[in-house]
Every structure is written in structure tokens, then in C-alpha cells.
């Protein structure tokens, strides 16, 4: 148990919520923006105790807070963080001020509501990453849908209604069975507390179905191929800040769910389904890359590239070795930084050209050198150029894949190559294409510099000195790997004829 003077995690969740209520007493558009920016910086400052107090060598949950919520059902208000969620919490909080800055001139209508949604969103996302009670997790998991839905539906592009509805329906439909799985865990394990459920070894027949119910919800959120179709629509229609949060934080919740729930709670089933999960991850990598290659809308390119990048993450998770897990968690962080940065860049150019078509934004290199510098940096990072952050993550997944099975590694190679191809294609045209009707747009202003420098610094820092991140995640990941392998062994006896067993247990469930 961590010794802290005050409940850090609760403050991080509820401070933005309370601050959001304050928005309604403000007048003036800029007041609202400045207020939210200040709130987001304070939120960042409030996370300082996390850095100061986090014990790197410990694999246990830290900063734990535990209270009764609905005593009769054993639902608790139970928060905590470990090496897996720590980086995600920081990422969520760090993205908030950038989102405020990149929407400064982009959002001109219903400004209060917009910033309310941003703050609400941050609170719910921090909640998702810190919840250690299944019900509490579900509450935050669903609560975040509403502000995201509104972000797309109210401030989005011309097809916003279609995109937002699709987003909402897909994700909520996915989590409908998650609730059933949560209830099943409670009945089988006697508690909603995740750390206590991790200690138990559930029968394989139970794990089999629980895995599927959990995986459906998470796979839609990631999104894994073939559940990805909501993502390009949502990304393209969302306002810049919405895309940034979607890419940086929301997609991570799916992979975080795999790491937090599927692997430790259903280890044997995870092992059983791993080949299948790896196969659709590779399909996603190749599919995302190839489709991105053919897009002329820059935002679509990045959206489809996300499908590919997240494929690397899920692949790493289901490799079941240390390198794979490290690579996966690294890529979660990296994708958040790099793709977030790319979406902010697209927002910046869209404010100038009012178009996201590649053809309308040709030849920026000549008049906007600073812009192209940042774009180049993020693009290099996006396809894993050595020296940038993604290189570290991607190479780890590669090593893990080759360790596991050379064929998996071999199948990933084309995916990485396609990524380079589509990013270079877009970058080339943006920098040196011949403008069809160019106007001389001003280069980046101070505000844009501010919100681009932050991710750029992290791209290089993590790329060149990844040691600190490793230190944060390693203890937890080593424990996770050990638990999963042991857990899988304990119940593996039952696994001789899984399909037959699964059908029998289905009869049991449906009796």
C-alpha cells in the first residue's frame, strides 16, 4: 500500500469533472478556453505525486484506494495503478492541454459544451485506466462514450451524424456482453475486485466464454480487423481534438482491456485463442496498410494506419513473451504520441486550406518549413524509423514474433514496409508536390508550435532513451507474463478437446 497524503487517483478523476461544472458560470469564448487550459495544466500538476511516489521495482498495484460502494453486491470504489496503466494515465492527462490548444481557433460554436466534453472525457478515461473493480471499470468505460459521441456528432464534419451513430452503436453493442461477463466473473469468483479475481484459476470452459465476451468488447474498441469499420468514419468526421483523443486514448482502452482482463483472468483461453488473435492482428496490419496506401484524404490515411498500428499492439500482446508484451505497451504509448501529433498537424493544415484532400495541400515545404519539419518527424516515427519512439516498440514486437515463430515475424515484414510506403507517399506530396492553386499560407504560429513541440520531444526522447519507460513497465509485465503462463498451465489439463468442451459448456450455460 502506498503512503500518500491524499487520494491522488480520485483527485485526478474528479478534479476535471468538478472543473467542468465551473465552465457554466463563465462568459466569453476566450475565458472558457483559458479556463480549460489552466484546468488541464493543473490536472497535469496534480499528477506529480504519481511520478514522485511510483515504485519502479514493484509489480503490485500502487496508490490504491478502496471503499465500499454497493455493499450488498460487493461493488467497490477500488482504484490503483501499476506499470501497465501508469503510462496510459499520464498519456491521457498530457493529451488534454494539447487538445485544448489545437481546438483554440478550430472550434467556434458551443464552446462551453465542447470543453465540458473534453474534461468529462478525461475524467472517464483516467477512471478506465485506474479502476480495479469490474463494475467501476464498466461505469467509466461506458461513461466515456457519451462525450465522445457528442464530440463527433456536434462538432464533426459533414457526415458527423452517421459517423457518431456508428461509433456509438459499435462500441456499446460490443460492451453489452461485457456486462454479462462481468456478472459471470462475480458469480464464479465471488468478487468484482480485479486483483482478487487474478488470483483464481477458473475452469477452462468458463474462461473460453468469458474470453470471447471480453474480447468482443475490446476488439471493437481497439479496433481489430474486421471490427474496425467505425474507426475511419469516426476519425474523419471528428474535430481535431476528437481525433486526437480517439487515437491517443480511446483506442488504447481496448488493448489495455486485453492486458488487464483477458490475459490475467482467462490465461488458458488466451493461450488457446492466441493463434487466432495473431492471425487477425496480422490481417489488420496488412489490410490497414494497403487501404491507407490508396487514400487521398490525409485523415483517412492516418485513420487506416491506426488499424495497422494497433494490429502490432494486439499481435505483441498475444505473443505471450516478454518482448512482445513490452513492445505492445510501448506501441500503445507511441501510437498515442505519434498519431495524436499527426492528427493535430492535419487539423493545423485544415484550418488553412479547409480541405483534407492531399491534392489541395501540395507543396507545403516551400512556405511552411516548420510545419514540414514536424510532419516529417511524426511521419518517420509513424513507420518506425530508427531513433524515433515507434522504432523501439516495433522492433520489440518483431523480436518477440521471431522468438515465438519465424513465420509470424516474416508475415509482419510486409506490413512494416507498406507503412513506410504510404507515409512517404503522403509526406512526399505534402512537401514537394506541385500546388494546383496554392496560396501562401502562414507557417506555424506560437500556439501551434507549443502543442506540436510536446509530442515531438517525446518522439525523440523515447526513441533515443527508452530506458525510463522500460523501468516503469517491466516489473508489472514480467509478473503478468509469469502469471499468464502459470495460469495457463494450471488449467491446461482440461484443454484436450476444447471445441467439444466448449459446446458442452455452452449447453451448460444455456440449460
Amino acid at each position, binding site marked *: 500500500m502506498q503512503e500518500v497524503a491524499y487520494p491522488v487517483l480520485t483527485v485526478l478523476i474528479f478534479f476535471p469533472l468538478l472543473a467542468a461544472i465551473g465552465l457554466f458560470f463563465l462568459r466569453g469564448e476566450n475565458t472558457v478556453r483559458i479556463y480549460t487550459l489552466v484546468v488541464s495544466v493543473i490536472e497535469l500538476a496534480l499528477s506529480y505525486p504519481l511520478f514522485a511516489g511510483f515504485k519502479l521495482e514493484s509489480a503490485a498495484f500502487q496508490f490504491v484506494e478502496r471503499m465500499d460502494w454497493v455493499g450488498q453486491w460487493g*461493488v467497490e470504489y477500488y482504484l490503483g495503478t501499476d506499470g501497465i496503466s501508469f503510462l496510459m494515465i499520464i498519456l491521457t492527462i498530457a493529451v488534454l492541454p494539447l487538445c485544448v490548444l489545437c481546438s483554440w481557433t478550430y472550434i467556434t460554436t458551443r464552446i462551453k459544451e465542447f470543453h465540458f466534453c473534453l474534461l468529462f472525457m478525461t475524467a472517464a478515461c483516467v477512471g478506465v485506466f485506474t479502476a480495479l473493480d469490474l463494475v467501476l471499470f464498466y461505469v467509466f468505460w461506458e461513461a466515456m462514450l457519451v462525450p465522445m459521441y457528442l464530440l463527433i456528432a456536434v462538432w464533426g464534419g459533414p457526415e458527423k451524424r452517421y459517423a457518431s451513430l456508428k461509433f456509438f452503436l459499435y462500441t456499446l453493442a460490443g460492451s453489452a*456482453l461485457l456486462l454479462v461477463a462481468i456478472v459471470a466473473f*462475480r458469480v464464479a469468483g465471488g468478487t468484482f475486485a480485479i486483483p482478487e479475481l487474478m488470483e483464481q484459476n477458473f475452469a477452462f470452459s468458463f474462461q473460453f466464454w468469458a474470453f470471447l465476451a471480453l474480447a468482443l468488447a475490446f476488439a471493437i474498441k481497439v479496433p481489430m480487423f474486421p471490427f474496425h469499420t467505425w474507426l475511419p468514419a469516426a476519425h474523419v468526421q471528428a474535430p481535431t481534438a476528437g481525433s486526437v483523443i480517439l487515437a491517443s486514448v480511446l483506442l488504447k482502452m481496448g488493448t489495455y482491456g486485453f492486458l488487464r482482463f483477458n490475459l490475467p483472468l482467462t490465461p488458458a483461453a488466451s493461450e488457446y485463442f492466441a493463434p487466432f488473435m495473431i492471425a487477425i492482428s496480422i490481417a489488420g496490419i496488412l489490410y490497414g496498410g494497403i487501404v491507407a496506401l490508396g487514400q487521398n484524404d490525409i485523415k483517412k490515411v492516418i485513420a487506416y494506419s491506426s488499424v495497422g498500428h494497433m494490429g502490432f499492439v494486439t499481435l505483441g500482446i498475444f505473443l505471450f513473451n516478454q518482448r512482445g508484451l513490452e513492445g505492445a505497451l510501448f506501441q500503445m504509448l507511441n501510437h498515442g504520441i505519434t498519431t495524436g501529433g499527426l492528427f493535430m498537424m492535419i487539423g493545423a493544415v485544415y484550418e488553412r486550406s479547409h480541405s483534407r484532400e492531399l491534392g489541395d495541400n501540395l507543396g507545403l515545404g516551400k512556405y511552411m518549413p516548420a510545419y514540414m519539419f514536424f510532419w516529417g518527424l511524426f511521419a518517420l516515427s509513424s513507420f518506425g524509423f530508427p531513433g524515433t519512439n515507434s522504432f523501439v516498440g516495433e522492433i520489440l514486437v518483431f523480436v518477440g514474433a521471431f522468438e515465438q515463430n519465424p513465420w509470424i515475424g516474416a508475415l509482419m515484414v510486409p506490413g512494416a514496409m507498406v507503412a513506410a510506403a504510404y507515409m512517404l507517399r503522403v509526406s512526399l506530396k505534402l512537401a514537394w508536390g506541385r500546388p494546383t492553386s496554392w496560396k501562401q499560407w502562414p507557417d506555424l504560429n506560437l500556439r501551434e508550435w507549443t502543442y506540436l513541440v510536446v509530442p515531438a520531444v517525446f518522439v525523440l526522447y523515447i526513441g533515443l532513451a527508452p530506458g525510463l519507460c522500460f523501468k516503469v513497465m517491466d516489473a508489472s509485465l514480467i509478473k503478468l507474463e509469469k502469471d499468464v503462463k502459470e495460469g495457463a498451465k494450471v488449467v491446461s489439463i482440461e484443454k484436450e478437446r476444447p471445441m467439444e468442451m466448449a459446446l458442452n459448456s455452452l449447453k451448460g450455460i444455456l440449460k
Partner: protein
Amino acid sequence: MNVNPYPFMPELSMFLIIALLFVQAVGSERMRHKVGVWLPIASLLPIAVSLLSVGQEGLFFHGAYQIDPLSQFFKVAIAIGFSVTIFNATRQPTLVTEKRSDYFLFLAISAWGLMMLASSVELITMYLALELSSYALYAIIALRAKDKGAAEAAIKYIMFGAVSTALALYGFSYILAGMHTTYLAELVQKTWSFEAAPMAVTGMGLFLLGMFYKLALFPFHFWCPDVYEGASNETAAFVATLPKLGAVVILIRLAAMFKPGYDITTVIAVLGALSMTFGNLAALAQKDVKRILGYSSVAHAGYIMIGLVSGTAEGLAAASFYALAYVAMNLTCFWVVSRVSVDGRNLQLDDLNGLHKRAPALAFALAVGAFALVGLPPMAGFMGKLFLFSSGWNHGYNWLIIIAGINTAISIYYYLGLVRHAYTKDAAEDLPLPDTSVFSFAGAALLSLLVLGLGMMPAGVFDFALKVGSVVP
């Protein structure tokens, strides 16, 4: 007979209101206008009195009438629901002034009947209380009879009601013939499997039809969307909520007979599954807001069955909690519908367009109500579903819970439709302005707080509900 009146205070307070309304209804022309002035305030009295009488217990009238936590829980709920519907109905635009006191008189009689239903533990008593509450409603729906839709709705309601009543009575005769008693306390001691008592089980099945009719459970739901559509918004708010409480309380009392595995339990589970699926699918195609809410109530009747078939005190408590949550969520939606429809017309989805600009508080309340009906946290509907699912899992009806989960996913589309129209679409210019008075705002705020409060801090109410659940042997 020496009866202590204290346990009956909720019923007596309601009777007092009825008596006053009766005087007003038969009184002079001048008196009838004043009903909107005193009644809303007076309707708070039953709430206070039922809250005070919560601790009371006892068996009265030769064992036919029981005061226990179950009955008191539902009396509180009925009193609150009655008060909200009264406040809601005071500004009813389509009700002519000379019929006002009659209208409120019938509402109060119906609520009174439901309160008595909550305490009935004998089949004939139940039947009488049920009919008392129903007859009042038959009259109310027909009050707008100049309107063709209302006349049709009234006829449908009465016809279906009469048929289901006849079936219930017929079933009652079978039960009496098979089990030789009408007291629940004795009935629950008997074996209710079809092999052991075919006649009584058949009879109980028929008797249940009457309750299913009130609850609008598939396939006894046909009246429901039409009646909601034909009745005025304010009447629909009453019909959609309070009678459901009455039906649930009876089903909870009878639930002690539904052991998992009995044929009758399986039939209820299957009806529950069909009800949720059919209600949700039918609601997808609706454009009229009240019809959407009508089919949604068919679906919600199905969800409540999960708690009833699980055969545990937790299950019954979950069903009670969900019934209360359902009333709160639905009243929230109907409050908004009634305030938006200032001229009393039936709202189409497009009439909600741009509500967030025209009346932000109402739009927010609608969002809270709709998301609660979906079962999205942190609203009451989510906690209700969590309790239902948890209580039902591993009691032999896991398939029912999986179906409920899938149904939740189906239902998102049409509930989200309400929010989508209110928040993302722009209003046509010729829409009449919704009621944005303090009255409208205060009601919306209170009801949203109730729905959010039940979702975020359900522990207290649920503990009470658990006492309710453990009353039944």
C-alpha cells in the same frame, strides 16, 4: 373489530384526497377550477405518510391484507409516482376545465387501488384491487373521446382489459378447485409443478395473464403502444408507470411459487425473452415518441422477469429496484414529452429537434432518461440491470441474461435516437416553443437527480429492496 388505523395511513391519505376530489367533482361549476391549486400540494401528503409508515407490519382482514416491507416499499414508490404525475398533469392542455376534477379523481382512485394491490395477499382481494385501479384508467383514457385516436385507444384498453380479466377469473376458479385455498401464504406451500397439480398450474397461468396484461408483457402488450399514443401525454405518463408497479408487486408475491425448473417458471422466462426482443425490435421502427416509450416498456417488462425467475431474495429485490428505477426513468422521459408538447399533440421524433437550444434543461433530462433506459452508467437503469443480471446468473436461466445483454445492444439505437434529435439536429422554425418555466425546469432537475442518484448511490434503496425480497418465503 378493533383495527389500528396507523398501518393504513398511506391508503387513508389517498382516500382523503379522493374524498375531496369527489366533493369538488360533484360540486358547483365554480369549485371545479380550483383543483390545480391545492391538489399538487396535497399529493405530497401520501409520500410523507407512506415514508412514515415504512416500519409498520401486520396481517389484517382475516389474513387477506398484509402490511410488510414489500407493500410499504411499493406504496412509497406509488405515492411518489402519483405526485409526479399530478404535478405533470396540472398543465394538461387538452383537458377541458369541467372535466379536470373528474380526471384527477380517477387518477387518485387508480393509485389508491394500486396501493391496496401492494398489500393484498389473497387472490380475490388482489383481483378487486386490480380492477379498482383498472376501471379508473378505462374512464380516463376515454376522457378525450372526441379525438378518434383516443376513442380507439380507450376501446382497445377496455376490450383487452376485459378479456384478460375474464381469463384471470377463469384461472382463479381453477386454482381454487385445484388447491382449495386463495391465500398466498397457503398457496406457496404447495407444489406447483405441472405433474403434481395440472389444474392449479393451468389456473395460475391464466391468473398471471391478468398481471402480464397490466405489465404489457409479450404477447399481452398489444394495447400498450396504441393506448399511449391515443391517451394524452400526461395520462400516458401515469398509465406507463404506476400500474407496472402494481403488476410487479403481485408477481413478486407470487414469485415464491416459481421455483427455477418448474414449467410455469420456464414459461415466464421465455415470455420475458420474447418480450424484450419483440419490444426492442418493434421500437426500432417507431417515429412517435410515445409509441417508442410504449414498446420500450414491453421490453422492460421482459427484463424484470429475470429477477422473478431466479427464485432468490436478491432476485426479487433486484426486480423491485428495477421497477422503481423504471418508473423514475420513464417519468423523466414523460415529463420532457409533456413539457415539449405544449399544445398537447403527440410528439414525433422530429419535434425534439434542436431541443438543446430551445430548452437545455429538458434536453438534458431527456438524455438522462434515455441513457438510463439503455442501461448506461452512472444512471439508475445500469445499476438495475447489474442487480438483475447478478441475481439471475447461475440460477438456471443464463440464456435469459445473455439475451437481455444482446437486447440492450439492440435498444441503443432508438433510445439514442431521442438524444440524437435533441442534441444534433436543428429545429424547424415553425415548432412551438417548449415550456421553459421554472416549474418545467424544477421537475426536470428533480427527476434527473433521482435517476442519477439511484444510479450512483443505490446502496440505501437496494438494502431496503432486499428487505422487500426476503419477505417472500
